[in-house]
């Protein structure tokens, strides 16, 4: 049994280890390790297309996770105050945002936005005083919107679970002591749910940062890091892609470890 479990762990980590190992390969060849070198990291960093894609991904992930953390937390708190029926509608919609395949979310967003742009752009052009009217198009905004959908659902679920486990008595004690609802929130509730909000933010960030399929549909002419990696893989694997992939892995790993650490706190105190 132990041998079997060890084999499964090897199965899980061998591919990851190989990517990391070959990112340090001196030669160009992706399968003969000819010596240790960090040159591919240098080349990756010097690659302007890649750095632009990385920057796009960071901006998008940061914005969508930030919005998701704020609005998702607000929704989680607000849902507590809703009637059973309204809460069920919310639960259903958030569940749908998570269960519906990413490929469908991407398509639906693309289709809806293109329709809206087709309707709105002529209107803007008609009322615009200058020569060149601004045109709405796919890009940052549409990726952030589509990512925000499921990252918000994720944050709401995590924060809601934390709120459900909060002690009611301490909230009641606070209002018995004549604290205003806002003071109670700021001094009692917020400090307790803050770790789960942060954890939700980090997970949302990772999800958005790693997402390929939704961005693939709604990115327009913008490129995100996963889209860049995907395109490069089709041109053939080089140590440079391994270097990029290793950086992606290390980044998401770091964020996950922090998120898990934050969420563990809830069980210890």
């Amino acid at each position: 049994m132990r041998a079997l479990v060890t084999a499964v762990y090897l199965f899980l980590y061998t591919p990851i280890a190989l990517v990391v190992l070959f990112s340090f390969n001196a030669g160009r060849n992706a399968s003969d390790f000819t010596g240790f070198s960090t040159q591919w990291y240098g080349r990756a960093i010097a690659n302007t297309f890649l750095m632009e894609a990385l920057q796009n991904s960071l901006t998008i992930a940061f914005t969508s996770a930030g919005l998701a953390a704020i609005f998702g937390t607000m929704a989680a708190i607000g849902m507590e105050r809703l009637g059973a029926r309204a809460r069920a509608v919310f639960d259903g919609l958030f569940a749908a945002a998570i269960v519906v395949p990413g490929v469908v979310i991407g398509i639906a967003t693309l289709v809806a936005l293109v329709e809206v742009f087709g309707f709105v752009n002529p209107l803007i052009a008609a009322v615009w005083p200058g020569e060149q009217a601004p045109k709405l198009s796919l890009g940052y905004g549409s990726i952030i919107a589509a990512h925000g959908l499921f990252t918000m659902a994720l944050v709401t679920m995590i924060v809601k679970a934390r709120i459900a486990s909060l002690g009611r008595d301490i909230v009641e004690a606070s209002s018995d002591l004549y604290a205003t609802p806002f003071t109670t929130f700021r001094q009692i509730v917020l400090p307790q749910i803050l770790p789960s909000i942060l954890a939700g933010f980090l997970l949302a960030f990772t999800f958005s940062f790693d997402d390929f399929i939704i961005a693939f549909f709604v990115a327009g002419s913008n490129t995100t890091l996963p889209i860049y990696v995907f395109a490069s893989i089709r041109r053939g694997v080089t140590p440079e892609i391994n270097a990029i992939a290793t950086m992606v892995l290390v980044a998401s790993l770091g964020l996950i470890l922090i998120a898990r650490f934050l969420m563990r706190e809830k069980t210890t105190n």
Partner: protein
Amino acid sequence: MPFTPATNRRLVTAALVGPASIWLFVFLVLPFIAIIVFAFGERAPEGGYQAAFTFAQFANLGSRAAAFKNTLILAPIGAFACLLVAYPVAYYLAVKASAKYRLLLVSLVVVPFWTSLLVRTYAWMYILGARGIPHLLEMVGIEDVRLLNTPGAVLLGIVYGYLPLMIMPIYVSLEKLDRRLLEASADLGARPLSTFFGITLPLSLPGVMTGIALVTILLLGEYLIPQLLGGGKVFFIGNALVDLFLQSRNWPFGSAIAVTLVVVVVIVLLIAMRIAWRVAGTRQVDLV
């Protein structure tokens, strides 16, 4: 007096859930209505959408039968293969592993799930590719082995990519298992194997069901694994959708397929919930 405490409370609640409601409506509900409308439309001559009311797109679904067949066969097989590998691991983690290392071992299972599936899948591309395992086999005299771009490669990628998602719910349900039941069973003279089949396995069924449902549902919309490891030969519905929207620009037909895919997902979900209620127990899954 317009601002009684009751209206005030309502305003605060509305302000709290407002942004999320708008987001859900604009970026989930509206787009869904849009693809349903599109699915009944026609392809414009230069690609895209042209208004119409026709069932032709749905009648044409058969032309993508291969994608539906691959998805509907490989998703459940993949989920079941995941289960076969995941169960022993979950069992070991929940029952056998020492408490000291349990948390670490569980984390090591979850971490890959939260890292890029794209990167993890492409790693297999070159393990299975001509310069990977087939190259090693050649050195020991086994020639002409082709692993990449086969259904087997896709299945392997599926098991690899979704294994953590299968292990976790089973682990959660096994961890809740009352040890005293196992001891009682042993005290009453049951062999380990009959304890397993009589007690452990039935009590872990809710976790097994959750895992199968989660993995199957996610696999129904899979794109990357068949694309990278199946080389366009093992087409899934997801691949057909990318092709229809981004290459041939047949949006109405693509929308009809997308709507059908969502219907399939909902059916699978309903069946899973039915069975889950029957085997009773929790439907709680802790993925993080």
